[in-house]
């Protein structure tokens, strides 16, 4: 009896703790750091429009996968590799960015297609150059329709290797300069919960492709495409956790409540049973 009572009280307190933790948003690791190559992205179409330089060149040399993906409990990440070059002016770097340079990843989860993109804005004022980066998230029905704006983040001042996060933490980006020997990159981070709120369901990410374009206006698939990876179609990636992970708070809360209900039902039967016996 004592043991049952202790177990019941423990279950009740666990339920309370679960409910409280559900009401308070959990803090997860936000930036997936373990990135892995995305299969099927070992080729790209180098349009090289108007002799545009190598800062748009998605790196797929020698069968290298040009895209990477990463995931943690909270977020997903995409990374576009950009080719190295021995010519400093002919490779991806923050110093070489021009207004309208746009790097974009498109992908589909469930019934919705998403596009996350970086666009550069360069402002020159006498001898001062201000480098601005914007990151936008758009979505639309996979079956068609128009893009809807979901998130926009503008950052004044950019540094290679720094991860920038929007005020609500829903989106972020990081740029890494290419060097003479190593590729550069544009990395995007998106919160799973935000994707869920916008209609994403399940764990299959399909039709993944990246675009590097000049003169983009900040909306998906605008400007002059210089490179696309893969060159046709899109890659597929299966998430370890759904979008988002199950609403664990409700689930964890429900289980002890069910246990308590069963226990009470049995207990009441026992009491009534003993009354009849008397």
């Amino acid at each position, binding site marked *: *009896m004592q043991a049952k*009572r202790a177990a019941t009280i423990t279950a009740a307190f666990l339920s309370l703790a679960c409910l409280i933790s559900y009401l308070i948003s959990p803090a997860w690791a936000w930036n997936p750091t373990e990135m892995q190559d995305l299969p099927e992205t070992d080729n790209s179409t180098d349009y090289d429009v108007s002799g545009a330089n190598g800062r748009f060149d998605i790196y797929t040399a020698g069968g290298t996968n040009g895209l990477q993906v990463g995931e943690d409990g909270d977020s997903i990440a995409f990374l576009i590799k950009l080719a190295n070059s021995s010519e400093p002016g002919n490779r991806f770097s923050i110093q070489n960015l021009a207004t309208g340079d746009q790097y974009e990843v498109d992908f589909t989860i469930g019934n919705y297609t998403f596009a996350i993109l970086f666009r550069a804005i360069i*402002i020159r004022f006498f001898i001062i150059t201000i480098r601005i980066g914007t990151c936008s998230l758009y979505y639309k029905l996979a079956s068609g329709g128009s*893009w*809807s704006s979901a998130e*926009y983040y503008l950052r*004044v001042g950019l540094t290679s290797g720094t991860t920038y996060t929007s005020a*609500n933490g829903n989106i972020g980006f990081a740029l890494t300069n290419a060097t003479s020997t190593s590729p550069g990159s544009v990395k995007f981070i998106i919160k799973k919960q935000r994707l869920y709120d916008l209609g994403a369901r399940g764990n299959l990410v399909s039709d993944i492709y990246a675009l590097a374009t000049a003169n983009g206006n900040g909306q998906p698939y605008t400007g002059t495409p210089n490179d696309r990876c893969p060159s046709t179609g899109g890659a597929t990636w299966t998430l370890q956790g759904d979008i988002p992970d199950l609403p664990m708070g409700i689930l964890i809360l429900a289980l002890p409540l069910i246990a308590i209900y069963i226990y009470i039902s049995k*207990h009441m039967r026992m009491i009534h049973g003993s009354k009849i016996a008397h």
Partner: protein
Amino acid sequence: MGQKSRISARKLTALLFIIIAALLALMILSLYRQLSQSTEVRSVEAGLIEAEGSPTIYFNLKNIGANTANYTYRVICNLTAEPTLDEGIILNVPPGGIFYYTIALTSPEQGTLEVTLEVYKDEETVSQNLLFRQKWIIKG
């Protein structure tokens, strides 16, 4: 012995019902909070986060209308060559949908930075479409 057992069982049952009632009350409170958030009448909520060296202004725009809508925003700054630091169109926000905007600036080395945010319904920045206007003064 049997009566003592019945009394302790009643106490236990009462305790369990109190705990379950408390849980139900918390769940109802949680649902009420969610509902009150979804029916709030303000469509734009904005603020300034004074991070070290990087003041950040944000706004959350919720479409509280019955139809999908476009909006326009403009960020005006006193320390740039062009007064408009950023402007753009917010496309196809569905009813109940929320658009989140963030602008992270750099603190001025001296003087003050004045930033004005304007949000308009539709795609024209005319006064009759103005939904929200706020100015922040950031000291260097």
